[in-house]
């Protein structure tokens, strides 16, 4: 099949335009973060899917075809189109080289990630220094995973919903609104990336720290960090669990039974690296979790409120 010079150039320019918009793997693959030897175990946050390097590879393939076609043509056929052959070949080569590098980088990152995930499939993300935690791992539910909302649907009962406001913060608030709420309660506001932190200005203050996660520009997750004294930790954990059970009923995922050591002192048990799983309530438009956590050498009880739509299938 013969392709006319005009359509050849039109196709080439279109391909150049599309491909020069981005090098997928460079932009969208996430490297596994190096893990500190002393950090607690956690899920590996990185890109394991090969989709992006495959997209890059296909761009390299497409550019190579245009490059070969351009090399096979003489200067005259380029001249008729008013295109500089050298410039065209140079441009195509540069784009192909950028995408080749991006593809190689992408394959390297994804294979390293797959290895890391294979070695530590059920671990938790390490927290970042300075008491500023990384976002909680919210892995998307796969179709073969059990539907946590299924029991709600089966029961036919109208379940309670996630509160619209938690500790003064409204879901769907913007960053500016959340900051205003925080500073209005005489607490310090700090935003790093998608995570906002509203903490008491005085360390010993009775006010609690709130960690706020934003998604699509709106507040989507509110975490209240309780930090009871070591001797009152287990009692406060039970009290909070009881309070949530009264309000939201029996959790769909009850908290794990505590070992003898943890039952004696949760703080000591978490210090040794044990992290007992907490309770989870799946509600109409979100979920609530209550769990003990160990971050930056301190024990916390995290009360997490997340707004999300139940999966539609």
């Amino acid at each position, binding site marked *: 099949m013969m392709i006319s010079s005009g359509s050849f150039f039109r196709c080439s320019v279109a391909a150049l*335009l*599309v491909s020069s918009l981005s090098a997928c793997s460079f932009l969208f693959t996430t490297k596994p973060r190096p893990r500190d030897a002393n950090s607690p175990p956690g899920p590996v946050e990185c890109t394991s899917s090969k989709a992006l390097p495959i997209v890059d590879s296909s761009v390299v393939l497409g550019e190579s075809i245009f490059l070969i076609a351009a090399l096979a043509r003489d200067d005259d056929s380029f001249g008729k189109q008013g295109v500089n052959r050298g410039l065209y070949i140079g441009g195509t080569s540069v784009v192909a080289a950028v995408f080749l590098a991006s593809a190689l980088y992408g394959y390297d990152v994804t294979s390293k990630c797959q290895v890391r995930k294979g070695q530590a499939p059920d671990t938790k993300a390490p927290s970042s220094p300075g008491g500023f935690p990384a976002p909680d791992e919210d892995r998307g539910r796969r179709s073969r995973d059990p539907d946590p909302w299924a029991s709600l649907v089966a029961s036919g009962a109208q379940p309670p919903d996630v509160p619209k406001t938690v500790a003064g913060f409204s879901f769907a608030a913007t960053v500016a609104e959340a900051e205003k709420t925080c500073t209005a309660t005489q607490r310090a506001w700090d935003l790093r*990336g*998608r995570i906002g932190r509203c903490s008491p200005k005085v360390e010993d203050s009775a006010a609690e720290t709130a960690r706020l996660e934003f998604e*699509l520009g709106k507040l989507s997750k509110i975490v209240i960090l309780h930090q009871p004294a070591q001797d009152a930790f287990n009692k406060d954990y039970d009290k909070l669990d009881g309070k949530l059970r009264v309000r939201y009923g029996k959790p769909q995922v009850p908290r794990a039974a505590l070992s003898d050591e943890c039952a004696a002192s949760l703080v000591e048990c978490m210090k040794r690296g044990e992290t007992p799983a907490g309770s989870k309530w799946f509600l109409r438009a979100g979920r609530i979790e209550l769990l003990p956590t160990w971050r930056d050498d301190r024990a916390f009880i995290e009360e997490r409120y997340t707004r999300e739509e139940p999966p539609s299938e």
Partner: protein
Amino acid sequence: MSPESVARSILLGVLGLVVAVANIAFWMFVVIRGQQRFQRLVERRFNVVIEIGHKGHWRVSGGASWLRRLAIEFLQLGYFMTAFLVWAAAMLAVVGLFSLAEP
């Protein structure tokens, strides 16, 4: 008018309607669902908060450097440019199809 040309005219009308509906559906997806998914992807990748500002412009916060803001600006532009190119390619195919059915 021959029966064949009547049939072709009807076919063109039906095709036109289908294209009109598909066109609306495509741009609705690009502007609403697609953009939302892309926004979420960019937010997670670059660890920033993106709010929708004036006329759909992305407003970035969360301590991003000016270079990152610029990159995100281009990504939003790139998203719509890609959608436009896909749309243009589909339109070319549709025009070709229409010319085949022309009475």
